[in-house]
């Protein structure tokens, strides 16, 4: 099906297009030079590539646990079955259908699930397959895995790379996620690690060694994405030093592709100063300074917004702490040989100083890091806030007046704990297009996403905003309204949403990475894996890997030791 989008003001920063009036043509799901067909009138309106969410919790056991333990949440946002839509439920933990429809309404066409244990990847893919419209993928957890820790202990990076490749294939995963490395294993007996230099009980390795080892294996395999890390000590006062020290561990690692060597998940939760909640303060300036002076790391904000959230993470000791702190209900789920995890509902309050400072930190990070290619706009859905609130975050970044109005409603001590009140920066549409489209695609290594060059996926969002007339800093309420419900969302050349109505619900694709390793490394690895299944796993090796049946529509990205780095990719330095 052919389509031409006429006269839009296009923001396609990956291709050096910063608000130019131009026509876009799509045929057979891809952007092409010229086409006829269906005409979409976008004269004077904001046009961007479809949004890409590189870190969101949208599928799998912990998401479903959130739904099961929160019938109160499922009662929110209820919409009956209608037209092409199946029913929607939930706010922080929407049902699968609502996930697809709501992303599409925002103009997003791709979202990646941020944390899946290999053993439970089958469940994740069952849910991903039920999410309509958007393309997706799932990052695979490796940071507390026995086989990983043993390879790291033995300093055998080729064998570790073979395991990572095998694990990604087994999980049909897209990249290497590391969450509180070593801490999840310690949690197996109710403990945690207190720093990246602690020994992981029973394994004779430190979190620092796990992180470095996985980064080296990741680059040896030339995976499209870098390691994607949730730091030790996340969520604790004073944890910014852990963040900075961990980043320092990785600065000399040579990237296997032209991209970062580490992506930091939800940086906001790891940019805390103070020695306790009493003297809790923002250390966002120190973190931003590090990102401004180093080029090996990228981050996503993990912005917190006031109101209801559901915290869910593979950082199980953190969730136990959340439950004790808030006296809220607590789910925990340890995964044999691989991970732990937890889920706790949460409400963030304007008048609670800690929450207000957390809110400010996310914004400070995005505004103080000069290069928008290094900072993705996320809320760590649904940990900081559900993704439906992205327009709120975007308008906060674009309008100092909005930030000031918001701060006036917060705890009065806030200005003493954060630099946000003095930050003048107001982002423009180019920066927003980078933070929500171009940068997440580049950081994930998705070459067909996040831009509108010839050959790119025909994913486009058009908003009822005239960027040449509207002053987003002043008219932030109008901008927020327009961003909340795209005029058109086009996915693969099909109009899937128009003015908030879902017109089509095609099946999205699932991306996963198949990396090749030398046979010799694989052959050295397999006896150790077989031994673990014989002795420790509660399932048979032959029932472990996710079967083809669970990926009805998949896109395999090849990587590994015999693959040349993608030539089209540019370095961060070149872009900056």
């Amino acid at each position, binding site marked *: 099906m052919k389509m031409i989008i006429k006269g839009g003001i296009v923001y396609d920063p990956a291709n050096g297009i910063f608000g130019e009036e131009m026509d876009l043509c799509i045929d057979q799901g891809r952007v092409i030079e010229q086409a006829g067909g269906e005409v979409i009138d976008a004269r004077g309106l904001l046009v961007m590539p479809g949004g890409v969410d590189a870190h969101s919790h949208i599928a799998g056991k912990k998401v479903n646990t959130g739904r099961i333990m929160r019938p109160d949440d499922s009662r929110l946002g209820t919409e009956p079955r209608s037209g092409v839509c199946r029913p929607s439920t939930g706010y922080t933990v929407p*049902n699968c259908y609502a996930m697809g429809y709501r992303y599409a309404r925002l103009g997003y066409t791709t979202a990646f699930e941020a944390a899946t244990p290999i053993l439970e990847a089958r469940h994740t893919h069952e849910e991903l397959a039920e999410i309509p419209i958007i393309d997706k993928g799932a990052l695979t957890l490796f940071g507390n895995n026995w086989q990983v820790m043993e390879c790291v202990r033995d300093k055998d990076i080729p064998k570790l790379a073979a395991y990572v490749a095998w694990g990604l294939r087994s999980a049909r995963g897209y990249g290497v996620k590391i969450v509180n490395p070593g801490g999840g294993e310690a949690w197996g007996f*109710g403990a945690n690690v207190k720093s990246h230099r602690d020994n992981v009980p029973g394994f004779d390795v430190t979190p620092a060694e796990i992180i470095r080892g996985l980064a080296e294996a990741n680059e040896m395999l030339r995976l499209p994405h870098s390691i994607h890390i949730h730091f030790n000590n996340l969520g604790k006062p004073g944890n910014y030093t852990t963040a900075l020290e961990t980043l320092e561990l990785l600065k000399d690692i040579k990237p296997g592709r032209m991209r970062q060597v580490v992506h930091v998940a939800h940086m906001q939760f790891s940019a805390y100063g103070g020695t306790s909640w009493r003297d809790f303060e923002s250390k966002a300036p120190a973190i931003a300074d590090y990102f401004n002076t180093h080029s090996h790391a990228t981050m996503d904000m993990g912005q917190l917004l006031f109101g209801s959230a559901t915290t869910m993470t593979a950082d199980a000791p953190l969730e136990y702490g959340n439950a004790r702190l808030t006296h809220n209900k607590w789910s925990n789920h340890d995964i044999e040989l691989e991970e732990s995890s937890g889920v706790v509902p949460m409400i963030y309050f304007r008048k609670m100083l800690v929450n207000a400072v957390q809110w400010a930190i996310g914004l400070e990070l995005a505004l103080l890091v000069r290069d928008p290619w290094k900072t993705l706009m996320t809320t760590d859905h649904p940990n900081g806030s559900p993704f439906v609130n992205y327009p709120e975050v975007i308008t906060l970044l674009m309008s100092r007046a909005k930030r000031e109005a918001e701060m006036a409603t917060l705890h009065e001590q806030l200005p003493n704990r954060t630099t946000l009140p003095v930050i003048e920066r107001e982002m423009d549409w180019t920066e927003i297009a980078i933070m929500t489209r171009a940068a997440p695609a580049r950081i994930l290594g998705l070459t067909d996403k996040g831009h509108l060059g010839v050959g790119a996926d025909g994913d486009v969002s058009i908003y009822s905003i005239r960027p040449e007339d509207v002053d987003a800093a002043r008219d932030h309420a109008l901008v927020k309204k327009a961003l909340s419900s795209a005029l058109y969302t086009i996915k693969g050349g099909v109009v899937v949403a128009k003015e908030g109505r879902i017109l089509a619900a095609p099946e999205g694709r699932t991306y996963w990475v198949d990396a090749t390793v030398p046979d010799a490394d694989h052959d050295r690895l397999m006896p150790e894996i077989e031994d673990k299944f014989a002795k420790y796993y509660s399932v048979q090796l032959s*029932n472990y890997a996710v079967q083809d049946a669970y990926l009805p529509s998949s896109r395999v990205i090849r990587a590994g030791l015999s693959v040349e780095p993608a030539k089209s990719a540019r370095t961060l330095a070149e872009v900056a």
Partner: protein
Amino acid sequence: MTESVMIKDAVCSFCGCLCDDINVEVAEGKIQRVRHACRLGSSKIMGHSRMQTPMIRKDGVLQPASFDEAYRRAAEILLAAKKPLLYGWASTSCEAQKKGVLLAEEVGGVIDTTATVCHGPSVIGIEEKGLPGATLGQVKNRADTIVFWGCNPVEAHPRHSLRYSSNSCGRFTEQGRAGRKIVVVDVRETRTAKNADKFVRIDPGCDYEVISALRMLVAGKGDVIVDTVGGALKADLAALAEMLKAARFGAVFFGLGITHSKGRYKNIDNALSLVADLNQHTKFVIMPMRGHYNVGGAGQVLAWSSGYPMSVDYARGAPYFNPGETAACDLLGRADTDAALIVAADPVSNFPRETAAALSKIPVIQIDPYENPTTLLSDVVIPCAIAGVEVEGTAYRMDGLALRLRKMVDSSLPGDEQIIAEIIKNIRELRQKAEGGA
């Protein structure tokens, strides 16, 4: 004579243990031998007398019919109903359950699972307090203290102890049974209790009091406790509390003895709280002993489709959940449903008598491989292939782990998923016809 084929590591689709190390010998399209499975699993996989032909009740008698006739009649019944009940789902695959949710949406019905008369109270307890759990392999590798409360795995989940709990060996539990303390709390000395290091016999219906006493003892507030609680001596409970606190990794498994005795979901709420409390002293997890092999999967599928894990009412178009109002027994009890589709379940045997009687007053469609008491009052009976033996699919173990069920032999009968898809197709055709006619 054709050669026999050995299918290795097949998943047993009997109970919530989902043992995945079953070897099955197949020759001439028939299962000849089953290895590694327990008696219960073996018996299911080997198979027994099956229904072969669909039946439709005419003039008060079930009479053989074609599949197409049965699909059409089922569709007519569901379309004519104002609020059909779609019940069962525990002993079939997630693929069939997904189609069931779609059917419930299409006909504006109520979909409920056998959890409602099983671990439904556990689900409500989890809604109150969350579930501090783990995969079974975590228990196998780490647990040095295991409590079985109101459950009897030796008879109901025969391979649980060897594969996952009391007698399993793992990385930090090399000594297996010898290195573990096993506790059983029950109202009678079960066979599981006979294998325990400590058996605490309590009076029927007193679980809540006993758990409360344990929570006080764990919190160091034992002085407020009377000398006997629910039939157990205070000294005995104090010793138990110390034993739990001394664990390096503790696990509680609970069964219907606590979910369906006095207190119901409150018992579970309290047990979950006890485990949360124990985590201030050591590591502890808790898990329901799910009975039917995929009752867990039914909860998962319903949750990701509707937001709720059971008793979901689609009469308003959007999912609505209110156990006490929308569970199968609630609907039948107040005659608030006018047709029922029963898939892979036998409510006539398992429901309270009055509720089962209510089923006899409305049209009933049954999809099942076997004749059972529910067949006797059904108006349409559709025999199906058995998931996990004759059809592939997905099931969720009692710890929430998804596994792929294998197909071992062919069947001439359609699977549940296919049958429900055919009924949906017929409903759409009938609707179109009605619209065209009008």
